[in-house]
């Protein structure tokens, strides 16, 4: 290890001291220290864009006093006896080998905030779906962060060969909460995992998530992610295709209003060929809401036969609303299909007039059109209850 002299900031010191109080069962103290060092030394990759953006990710540090396992409530639910669903502490005791095949094996801990989650991990969930087992009902995870708490959940999903499962995560947080979480999905050949998350935190909370999936050969993986609440909602979502034949989907919906900020990074890594990926982003902003989307598609030189699509549409509903959209395609192979399309714009006057000409008032017409705008992404959410909740949450933001 190269030796470096660093000036230890008070925040860093305070967090280091905090590590002693955290449970060593899932992540031992040394690993926590290393992860915390990575957090403090690694750049976020989320540089400040434009003159509107007020968030500086390099300066985000949780308050050490607020770090607490007791600051959150996790409820998990499945009626499926074949599935293992438990908290991480239990998984470490009862299913250590299964957990080890997935926990920490994805790209999440390679990001700045993923490292922070690992360093301060407070609790989490392990879900295991055995081979060739199809879950009829979604696995439900409800996570609530208390006011002012800083919490670091880690959710791990391991799906064996041919397994099928849907996970629905619903996150709420009270004012002042700081949630910095990670989700990992590891699947084997022919597995089919859909993971949906609806973040509906208080508008004064901060919610940062790192999510990474590693699908197996010919496996299907789908993320469906919605950010409704929070003063700052940030996600770094990756799918690393390392086996051929995977079918990967990433759909996201976000809609900052008032002074909300959303920062979404979606990365599709095609490291094996003959795989397809589809990214669909529908975002809107109103009032002084700000968002940015960074969409990476990377196709490695040997990943021939890859088919990657990225569709990103942003709707600006107020003059001071702002959405930056930055698709970035790096294509190393020559026998691939890659498509990307992006739009940023206001509501269409012809659409509004058409609806008005059918007796629908202008406000109602605008709401219908804006809600419809999200619909192609909403369709990717797995249950009708979740879709309806999402529609209702979006409608409330439009009124």
């Amino acid at each position, binding site marked *: 290890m190269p030796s470096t002299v660093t000036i230890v900031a008070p925040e860093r010191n305070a967090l280091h001291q905090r590590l002693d109080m955290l449970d060593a069962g899932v992540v031992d103290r040394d690993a926590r220290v290393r992860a915390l060092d990575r957090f403090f030394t690694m750049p976020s990759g989320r540089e400040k864009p434009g003159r509107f953006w007020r968030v500086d990710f390099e300066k985000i540090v949780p308050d050490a006093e607020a770090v607490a396992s007791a600051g959150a409530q996790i409820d998990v639910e499945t009626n499926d006896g074949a599935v293992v669903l438990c908290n991480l502490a239990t998984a470490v005791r009862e299913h250590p080998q299964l957990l080890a095949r997935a926990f920490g094996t994805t790209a999440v801990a390679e990001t700045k905030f993923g490292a922070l989650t690992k360093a301060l991990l407070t609790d989490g969930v392990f879900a295991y779906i055995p081979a060739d087992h199809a879950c009829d009902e979604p696995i439900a995870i409800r996570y609530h962060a208390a006011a002012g708490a800083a919490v670091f959940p880690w959710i791990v999903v391991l799906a064996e060969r041919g397994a099928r499962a849907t996970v629905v995560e619903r996150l709420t947080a009270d004012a002042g909460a700081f949630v910095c979480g990670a989700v990992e999905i590891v699947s084997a050949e022919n597995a089919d995992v859909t993971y949906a998350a609806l973040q509906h935190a208080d508008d004064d909370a901060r919610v940062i998530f790192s999510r990474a999936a590693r699908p197996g050969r010919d496996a299907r993986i789908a993320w469906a992610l919605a950010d409704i609440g929070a003063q700052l909602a940030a996600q770094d979502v990756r799918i690393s295709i390392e086996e051929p034949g995977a079918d990967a989907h990433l759909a996201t919906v976000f809609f900052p209003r008032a002074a909300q900020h959303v920062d979404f990074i979606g990365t599709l890594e095609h490291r094996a060929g003959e795989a397809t990926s589809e990214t669909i982003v529908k975002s809107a902003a109103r009032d002084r809401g700000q968002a940015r989307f960074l969409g990476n598609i990377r196709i490695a030189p040997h990943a021939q036969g890859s088919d990657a699509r990225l569709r990103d549409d942003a709707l600006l509903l107020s003059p001071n609303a702002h959405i930056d959209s930055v698709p970035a395609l790096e294509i190393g192979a020559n026998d691939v299909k890659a498509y990307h399309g992006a739009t940023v714009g206001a509501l269409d006057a012809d659409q509004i007039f058409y609806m008005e000409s059918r*007796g629908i008032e202008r406000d109602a017409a605008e709401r219908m059109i804006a809600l419809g705008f999200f619909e*192609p992404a909403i369709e990717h959410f797995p249950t009708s209850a979740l879709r309806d909740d999402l529609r209702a949450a979006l409608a409330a933001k439009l009124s």
Partner: protein
Amino acid sequence: MPELGLRITNLRCRVAGNEILKGIDLTVEPGRVHALMGPNGSGKSTLAFSLTGHPQYDVSGSVSLDGEDLLSLNPDKRARAGLFLSFQYPAAIPGVKVANFLHAARQAEKPGDPLPPGKFRALLLEKMDQLGIDPSFMGRYLNDGFSGGEKKRLEMLQLAVLAPKYAIMDETDSGLDIDALKDVGNSIGALRATGEGSNTGFLIITHYPRILQYIVPDVVHVMIDGRIVKTGGHDLAHRIEREGYDKIREEAGAIA
């Protein structure tokens, strides 16, 4: 009793400073079919948008619908007063399903007769069946990915569901093959055969006389260069079919 009819008096319209409509006088009576014919660029579609309140048009003169002044109303209120426009180019609205849109329109236009979703669905299915429209239309996004014929068919469905007092059909025949044209003619005929549709007054805007084989007008107007230069019976349409617009244009020029 208010004076019935869609009454257009000295209607003028400017678009980007140019006068497109130069004083239109025309009255469509309940239950009657008027055809408005004219070459491209004569101002026919501008008239349709002026009547329905498109925000880009600077309109003067007066228009009343069964006695209610229209020009002071927003487009949605004009629709609720009973005016319908079948668009030449209907807007596609992704994410908004045909059934939901039409239900919202029906509720907006008939607030005194609200239909719960189940009853509305039954009504919609009935109308779709009458018009030979596949029920799968209900779940499709409004005009999104529709063929030209499907868009016109959806306009006809809306006409049937909303049963307006006055309907303006803007170039409904454009881009349709003969079978689709027949369907449109039959759709209008079917609406006129219903109780609530029998009093609907029509203003059928068209470039070609062929649609008038399927819906026979009571009155035919010819518009050239922003003015109605000739009004007559159905035979006027036949004359245009034989002679085109040049002769009428010459006659109009001679008068002017």
